[in-house]
């Protein structure tokens, strides 16, 4: 059932999958801890929104755009001095999480900003009329109404993070993508590469399915 070549390389494959999990996991963490607040703030600073602030919006928007429009491979290389400063080294899986976390924050923040448009304006107005604080408006109204869109955005982001993680081999980050390149491509084990790609595809399909199912389940509107 399981191809011999996968069994032959199974310990390397498990290590690679582990590395991918670490890189993507930290990216998701950064998306939630940094991307979500930044995206929320971007949304609230928009014209006509509660914290309307043209200057704050434009500057933050510019930063997010810059990071997102940087070709990721170049961003990783460009960030090496910063990564080395933060982590003490620029090489390895731990160091690779740094650029992953940066791109993840920018990526998810943009999707969050769009997702929050899903909360009807009238509901936010009702919140203000009840004397809700900004914090209450965000957690008791905004996120509640936009939760399906936020989950779908996280699904999209996670899939992008997996894709981003496949190039982290350039800084010794490892991961399943790097495994496919090193063993499958460079050692001409095309069959191995194809099996690894199938593993990634199955994984991405699963995430997509889980995200859509969850988003549907929590949407009561």
């Amino acid at each position, binding site marked *: 059932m399981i191809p011999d070549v996968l069994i032959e390389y199974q310990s390397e494959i498990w290590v690679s999958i582990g590395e991918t999990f670490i890189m993507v996991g930290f990216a998701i963490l950064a998306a939630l801890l940094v991307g979500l607040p930044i995206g929320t703030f971007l949304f609230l600073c928009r014209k006509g929104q509660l914290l309307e602030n043209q200057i704050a919006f434009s500057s933050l928007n510019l930063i997010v755009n810059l990071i997102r429009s940087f070709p990721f491979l170049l961003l990783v290389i460009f960030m090496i001095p910063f990564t080395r400063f933060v982590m003490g080294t620029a090489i390895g899986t731990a160091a690779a999480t740094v650029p992953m976390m940066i791109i993840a924050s920018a990526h998810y923040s943009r999707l969050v900003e769009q997702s929050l448009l899903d909360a*009807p304006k*009238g*509901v936010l*107005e*009702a919140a*203000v*009329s*009840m*004397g*809700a*604080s900004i914090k*209450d408006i965000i957690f*008791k*109204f905004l996120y*509640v*109404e936009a*939760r399906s869109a936020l989950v779908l955005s996280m699904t999209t982001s996670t899939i992008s993070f997996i894709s981003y993680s496949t190039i982290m081999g350039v800084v010794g980050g490892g991961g399943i993508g790097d495994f496919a390149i090193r063993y499958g491509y460079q050692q001409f084990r095309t069959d191995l590469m194809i099996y690894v790609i199938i593993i990634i595809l199955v994984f991405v399909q699963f995430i997509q399915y889980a995200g859509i199912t969850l988003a549907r389940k*929590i*949407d*009561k*509107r």
Partner: protein
Amino acid sequence: MITLHNVSKQFESFEAIKDVSLSIKSGEIYGIIGASGAGKSTLIRMMNYIERPDEGSVVIDGEALDQVKHKRIRHIRQSLAMVFQGYNLVGNKTVYDNVAVPLELSKVPKRDRAERVLESLRFVGLETLKNQYPGQLSGGQKQRVAIARALVNNPSVLLCDEPTSSLDPNTTAEVLDVLKRINERLGVTIVIVSHEMEVIKSLCQRVTVMADGQVYDTVENNPTGVQHMEHSAAGFVERLRSGGDANDS
């Protein structure tokens, strides 16, 4: 209770409210009628300071809102509950949870909430729907849930912006009946904005007629007053009869 002193409001160069003064007494049902675009929503939103006047002042129970901190304004808003044309319920919360929100905001302990939520829902006759989501309800039911939500914190005033304008005549009557009971049984002051003369006539004690951001007239709701109101609102009524934009948003 609520006094507006010479309030004005501009949107860019457009003068939405021009030097309006009015005073609403505790315990009354006060109507504001006018055509679409007259400035009614802007005016009622000034009463809880969702819309800040450029000039003039808003005084609630002797407190001028331009003199107090934002935190105090948020506190005052909890006693000036608002009901909207579009209901504005949280679609992802059940009826029960929607009604409980104001109690959460004012930090009522969880164990004290249930009784008050159910009492509020009972008042509007929707206790049995407590586990439904707004999307499963009719327009009239949604508005009654919104009213229950507005009532749950024992407000002293209910600000209603076109509460029945999306409803059919039967449901409108139900909602107006609930508002009337709130005023009579709970002594809550009600301000109601509408472009429908019938709604105003069936509910209000006093009525202000608005047009083009200004107060045209304020009358008692009795035969002489109504005659007066219909006369002074002639232009606006005319527009309604000729099938103009009677709908508001």
